Structures are given as structure tokens and as C-alpha cells.
């Protein structure tokens, strides 16, 4: 059995690696690299925190400086909203306005000569809760009535009133009046006057107008 006479006098620490990639070199290099990265990351973090703190301070100052302006803006916006609502409401009211003038001016020519109007009245709409009236109408529609009170005399007072009714029902007035009627008991003798005037009849005509549209 051949056994070589290998008397090796090289120390363990003198056994070097021929590989260009050496753990002995790479490990400290990697450690230094990681340490440098950590330090860089730490400084970046510190810088970022400092920047954020500075920004935070600036933002706080900015917020403090614009708070009164902001409050003023909020007030102005609330006021603007209020005014806008008011303007809208006014617009609605403007739109809901029923123009009686033109139609009423046409009535004069169509009223028989024996009829005298004593009153033309548009009653206030009935409140749902009279104790607590609302600032604005709660319905989008509102019934509008025109009450005409008058007296008639002559030979044929009824016919004159009926003629008036018929006139009021003509298409000239249909744009304004939807229906025209004399409520029961509203055509009666005028008892309040003297006996000579006993042939005078009082009447009352209720005209249902086109509804007011709050739009």
C-alpha cells in the first residue's frame, strides 16, 4: 500500500481560496454595505421626518392664517345659499303669479248693464294649521278662487246673472277661470235695503281659477 510522505507545514490560516468570490471578503463587504444602506435609510428617514414636521408646522401656520378667512367664506357661502334660496323662492313666487288684470279688464265689457259688482275678492288660501303658519307654501299647487259679489235688478235678474255666468265661461276667460258657479243660497233677495229696492237680487259667483303652481 503506497502512502505518500505528505508532511504539510502550511498553517490553517494560510490556506487561501483561489475563488475570486471569497466569503471572508464578501461577508464584511455585505455587512458594510448593509450598514451603509441602514445609515442612509436612517438619514433619509430622519430627513423625511424633519421635512414632514416642517411641512406640518407650515400647514398648521397656513391653517391658522386662513381659519378666519375660511370662516368668512363659510359664512359667505351660507349667506349665499340663503340668498340663493330666497331668490329661488322669489322666482317661484314670480312664476306662480296669476295675472288677473287682463281678464278682469275684459269682464267690464261683458257684464250686463243691470248688474253691479259690489265686491271682487280673492280669498287667502286656507292654512293647514292656522296656529303655526308656514313661511312658504308647503304644496306645489294652490287652489285660487275669485269671488265676485254683486247685485242685479231689472226685469230678468236671473237671466242677467246667467248671462254673466255664460260670459265668464267663454274661452276668453278659460285661461284664467276653470269653473264658474253660484254656490247654493248665494243668489238671494237683498233684504237689507228699503222696500223699494226689494226687487234687487244679490248674487255671489265663485270662480275657481287655474291653480297657482310654485315651480
Amino acid at each position, binding site marked *: 500500500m503506497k502512502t*505518500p510522505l505528505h*508532511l504539510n507545514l502550511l498553517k*490553517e490560516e494560510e*490556506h*487561501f481560496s483561489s475563488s475570486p468570490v471569497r466569503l471572508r471578503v464578501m461577508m464584511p463587504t455585505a455587512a458594510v454595505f448593509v450598514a451603509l444602506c441602514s445609515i442612509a435609510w436612517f438619514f433619509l428617514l430622519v430627513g423625511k421626518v424633519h421635512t414632514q414636521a416642517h411641512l406640518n408646522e407650515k400647514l398648521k401656520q397656513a391653517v391658522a392664517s386662513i381659519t378666519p378667512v375660511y370662516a368668512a367664506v363659510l359664512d359667505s357661502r351660507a349667506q349665499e345659499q340663503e340668498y340663493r334660496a330666497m331668490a329661488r323662492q322669489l322666482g317661484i313666487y314670480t312664476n306662480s303669479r296669476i295675472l288677473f288684470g287682463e281678464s278682469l279688464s275684459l269682464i267690464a265689457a261683458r257684464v250686463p248693464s243691470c248688474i253691479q259688482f259690489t265686491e271682487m275678492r280673492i280669498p287667502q288660501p286656507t292654512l293647514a294649521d292656522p296656529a303655526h303658519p308656514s313661511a312658504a307654501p308647503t304644496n306645489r299647487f294652490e287652489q285660487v278662487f275669485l269671488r265676485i259679489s254683486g247685485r242685479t235688478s231689472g226685469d230678468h235678474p236671473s237671466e242677467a246673472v246667467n248671462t254673466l255666468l255664460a260670459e265668464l265661461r267663454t274661452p276668453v276667460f278659460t285661461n284664467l277661470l276653470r269653473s264658474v258657479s253660484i254656490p247654493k243660497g248665494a243668489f238671494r233677495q237683498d233684504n237689507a235695503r228699503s222696500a223699494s229696492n226689494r226687487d234687487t237680487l244679490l248674487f255671489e259667483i265663485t270662480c275657481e281659477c287655474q291653480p297657482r303652481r310654485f315651480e
Partner: protein
Amino acid sequence: MVLQKREKKVLFAVRFRCEIGQGMGVSPFRHLTGQWHVFCLFNQTMKSAALKIKFTSQNKSFADVVGIEIGAALPQGIPAVRVCKREGKTELVAADFLKLPGELPQTPEGISAPPAWLLPRAFQAPHAALTLTSQLVFLRHASSANEETEENKKFPYRTVSRVLAQDLPPLSAGIPDFQAAWAAHLLPEGRPPTACSLQVSPAAAINTFIASPVFGSLSGTAVVLFVFPRYTAFAAFHDFRLVLYREHMVGYAHIRETVSDQMHVDQSLTDSILSDTLIDPTPMIEPLLRSLFRQIEISYDYLTRRRNCQTDNFFICGLPFSTTYWSALFSRMLNLTLKTFHPFEGLERAPRASVCDLSANESLLMTALGAARAVLEDEPT
């Protein structure tokens, strides 16, 4: 108390490690070896240390090694031989003399930073086996590896010893620590090759014979004379084991100087005279060789009488010239045949091998080859 096998191993490992590591040549555990009861206690605490030694020892085999002889101071350059093992066969990849900077320091005071060697591509094996040739290195049988000598009184030594036979003192090798450290840092880390072994040149040269096919074919006892410039090493093998090693202070440089002085010719002409047969230099070299062979005869007698190793196999190697004159005188004096051993014989060449003229230079490349083969043939522990 009889040492258990495992305990012996641990003791050897500890001693081996300490001897290598201490450098001063004095083991701190030396006093424990004679006191086994102390050692038993010590052994328990050293289990982890033994484990560490096992792990840190060279426990891998090498397949491609370049052997480099440092300190030979040859005009041709630094001998380097690269061998590799493929499919169980050892092949010669490259062998030449390299022009590399640096000179082995001879004193600790004269030491300078070792140059970083970059070997030619053909010699860039992954590992390098370095062998030191210096007057300060030694290989000898010693009663203790750490015995105080003239050398280690002057400066620290690295020593390692190997027990060859139970009835023989261990063979001890040593290198001055400053020379070893200088040589170990010649091949820098990070590029091939890097040193994996550092040997003394006579031990490296012995490996050329151990690894050769001639050695495998021998039976019984064989003696090899390794001729170096300043000494001749006598190595006797019995049953494939080195049983005796001696050095005799006559080398081929002495022969060369004698002839040169007596004939008043320069070295190159002397080499030519000793290689040719035009002039018979025997009268000039005989007195030197006679004293050498007388010493060889004494060693041969010791082998025959004291160790009962009768041998007829005598080999000589390492001679660059005048081999015929050595053989003739040896036959005349000892009545034995001295055969020439060629270290590169039987070594196959690898494809595209880069090899110089081996017939002219094999003796000079012998030590580098032996260092590489020692590493290549060494089984992992």
C-alpha cells in the same frame, strides 16, 4: 496504562496541531504525554478541540495541483510541475522553469514582503504544493519533533513529525517560520493557484519515488539515493514504507566544484565534461563519492543487520550529470547495481501538455513533481 485507539488518535491530533501551530517547537501539552491520568481529565475537555482539529485538517482530496520548488536558485528559473488526476490516472499537464520575482529570505532580518506571483496559464491549477529548498530546512529522524537544535535556537521553526515505524524515531520535518510565512503568501488569495501544502524538498522528492510505478512493482526492500546540490538523501523502503532516512553532506554541486577547481573550467563546461565521456573525471570525483558511498554502505549494513532488510534494489535520482560514474563507482565499492530512477517515467501527458525538455531537466523538476504528487496521492483524512 494502555491507550485506547481513539485516545491515541486524539493525543496525536493534539500534538500534531500544537507542533504545527506553535512554531516555537515547544508544545504546551508536551508535559501531559507522560501523565495519563491528567490526560484523561484533559481528554474530556479537549473533545471539542479534537473535533475542531478534525474539521480544520486537510480533509479533501485534490485533483489538480501545481508543485513549485522555492529557493532552488536555478538559473533557468523556478521549477514548476502541474499534474492532475483524471479517472484514477495521473497526467502531466505542464512542467517548466518559471521566471518569477522574489528570493527566499535566508534570515529573519532580511525578510521583505513576498511578491504576488501570477503563474502562466498552463500552471494555473486550483491548488499549489510548495516545497522549500533551503539550508535551514530539515528532514530527519528525531526523538521528539520539538527537540532543541542549533536551528531552532536561532529562530522559530514550524515542525511536523510522522511515525514511520514503532521501533524507529519519528521522521521530523521543519522550516523556519519566517521562510514558511514568506512562501505561503507568494500566491495571493483570489486567483489560482493558492497554496494548499508546504513541504521540505527532500520529503517532496521522496514522493516522486513513492508515486512511481517502479515503487509499486518492487517487493521487499528498496533504497533510493536522492542527490541534491549540497547533500544526498538516503531513503530506504521496506514493504512500501519508509523505514530509514539519512542525509550525507555530499551533493552534485560538490562534484561540480571539485572538477571545476581541478580542471580550472567554468560551471557550464564542467557540466559538459561530467555529461560526456571524452574526459574521465573519476580520479577527481572518486574521493568525494567514496566517502559518500562509505556512508551509504554503513546505512546498508544497518538495514541488513539491525532491521533484517536485505535489498538488491538501489536507485539513484536527481543527478543532472555523471550518473554513469556514480553507478560505476557504486558497483565497484558495494558490488551492487545502482539503477537510475526517472521521476517522470510512467507519467502520462495530458492532451495539449506544456512540458519543457524533460530528459535534460527531470532531475531539476523532481522536487516540484514530488510536492505535487504528495498532495495528489494523499488520501483525505
